[in-house]
């Protein structure tokens, strides 16, 4: 018998300890329960970053380990956000409408309440009827289930069609881009049932919760840290054993795996679906911290960024994906958030909001060409140093 999978991969334990230490430190420094050095909005940024790290792990599983460059995983991320957003919006509007109607002389009927919620939510797209897809929106449990089911089923159907036809390589990447673009365009329509380009908003307000945002933000931060730790553990387990061998084999030589008797298509499909669901969980935790989700979130470029994070962090190692997502998205927030001072060259002003994209693009090219192992590759160097 060999050692348990954590024994074989000490990096798992190290990662979980780092995550725990980080979470504790942030909790102590935050406004909600700590000394208040970190602002609530910064806590939200950190919480969102943890969610991005989680979706990057999903991307690393499917791309770094299995070699499938999916450029559509942000569609699953966004769908997860929409699913939880529906309940958040419905439940909060329900309370508002009930309070408003309670002012009247006669108690409102159930139908009046529902009509009120409908016109509150859908007035912005010129409607007041609930679309069919909102049928479970009043139930938190069912909407939470849908966070997994809707992206899972979409991935299952899409993957089944694509893998069964043996679409692979760059063609599959294009197909996944088409999927996320089609979904975004559909959601942009007012009659999509999800409020078109307005998206779902006010998601930071938990229905029935009176705690201030400084406290709620900590809840979500902890939940995100927990999800990241659990996601890391599950992913590490999936890739640790023979399943991991097979999917890495598929990445390196698909035909050989097939002649070993493994149904390659099914393995790809299962991993694709699993990673879609991990992405959806990350999205469901991200958008309540962002406060708003709209179709622009799942534009094709978002999924490409995801690939860039993983490439810069280091493909084929889970902590690489986490480092890449955390590093690049935080730096990106700094540059695009207006915190980076513009540089006036006299004849031209360098505005980082625009030029950040150029830097990101160049670093992606440089990493791909000269450091294919990304930031994670630095750890290999350290390991070699310490051995010699």
């Amino acid at each position, binding site marked *: 018998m060999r050692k348990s999978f954590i024994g074989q991969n000490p990096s798992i334990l190290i990662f979980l300890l780092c995550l725990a230490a980080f979470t504790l430190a942030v909790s102590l420094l935050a406004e909600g329960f700590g000394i208040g050095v970190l602002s609530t909005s910064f806590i939200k940024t950190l919480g969102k970053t943890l969610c991005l790290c989680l979706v990057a792990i999903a991307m690393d599983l499917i791309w770094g380990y299995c070699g499938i460059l999916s450029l559509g995983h942000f569609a699953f991320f966004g769908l997860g956000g929409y699913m939880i957003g529906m309940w958040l919006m419905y439940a909060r509007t329900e309370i508002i409408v009930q309070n408003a109607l309670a002012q009247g002389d006669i108690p409102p009927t159930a139908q009046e309440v529902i009509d009120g919620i409908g016109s509150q939510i859908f007035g912005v797209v010129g409607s007041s009827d609930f679309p069919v897809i909102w049928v479970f929106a009043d139930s938190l449990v069912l909407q939470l289930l849908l966070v997994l089911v809707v992206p899972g089923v979409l991935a299952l159907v899409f993957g089944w069609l694509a893998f069964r036809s043996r679409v692979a390589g760059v063609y599959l990447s294009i197909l996944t881009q088409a999927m996320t673009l089609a979904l975004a365009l559909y959601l942009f329509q007012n009659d999509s049932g999800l409020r078109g380009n307005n998206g779902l908003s006010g998601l930071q307000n938990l229905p029935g919760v009176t705690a201030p945002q400084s406290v709620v933000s900590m809840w979500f931060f902890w939940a995100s840290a927990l999800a990241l730790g659990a996601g890391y553990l599950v992913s590490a387990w999936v890739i640790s054993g023979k399943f991991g061998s097979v999917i890495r084999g598929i990445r390196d*030589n698909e035909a*050989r795996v097939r*002649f070993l*008797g493994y*149904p390659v298509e*099914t393995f790809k499909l299962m991993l694709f679906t699993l990673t879609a669901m991990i992405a959806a969980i990350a999205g469901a935790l991200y958008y309540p911290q962002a406060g708003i989700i709209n179709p622009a979130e799942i534009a094709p470029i978002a999924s490409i960024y995801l690939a860039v994070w993983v490439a810069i962090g280091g493909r084929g190692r889970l902590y690489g994906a986490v480092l890449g997502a955390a590093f690049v998205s935080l730096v990106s927030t700094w540059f695009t958030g207006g915190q980076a001072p513009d540089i006036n060259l006299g004849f031209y002003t360098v505005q980082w909001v625009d030029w950040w994209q150029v830097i990101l693009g160049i670093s992606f090219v440089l990493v791909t060409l000269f450091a294919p192992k990304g930031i994670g590759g630095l750890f290999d160097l350290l390991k070699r140093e310490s051995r010699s």
Partner: protein
Amino acid sequence: MSQMNTLLEVSGVSVSFDGFKAINNLSFQIGPAELRAVIGPNGAGKTTFMDIVTGKTRPDEGRVLFGEKSVSLLAMSEAKIAQAGVGRKFQKPTVFEEQSVHENLMMALKAPRVWWSVLTFRPEAPDMARVQELADQVGLRDQLDRIAGELSHGQKQWLEIGMLLAQEPRLLLVDEPAAGMTPEEREHTTDLLVEAAKTRAVVVVEHDMEFVRRLNCKVTVLHEGSVLAEGGLDHVTANPDVIDVYLGR
């Protein structure tokens, strides 16, 4: 019933690519414990023949039947055919270079191939012993923890043969196993194949006559997609048609 002595029966198989008949009305049989060499000039259809048996290429016509129950392999996927007991070794050594010898062998080891079984699979003592035994057999006992990509060319060939044996196939298709090997490595490879053929059918596609002579088995000569001659090596090399194809142009 002759099927008792036949593991694989290929009959009347033809396939053409863009009008070119790669395989033309080919028929071939092999018994359950037999070593067979398939020789033939370039373009004779040797690799296409293997592609058809392993499900990579679908023939235009003909039958391919396997096992006592004579199941047709034609409707099965590559993975299903492999699970039914057909193993294939490619011409170029194809092992998983980023993984250790141990992982390569463990992946090939006969076990359920369904995804959930693979996901929950954790090696038990018998599996570890079997991997050890296979590594012994192919002479890689000391290399188990090495990354396969670091092995020499010959060692990779053996690792691949070891992986094939790990699958416990009933029929082994081996494409030019001796290519690029040193004389000592060839000898070891010959022993491995002869040993393997005691309990299963082994088809060796080979260019090298010296190697075929050493295998000391029945030979099938392919030419332009069909069987030109069959029999002992001395018998077929004495055949005027074979001499024509090999020498007389």
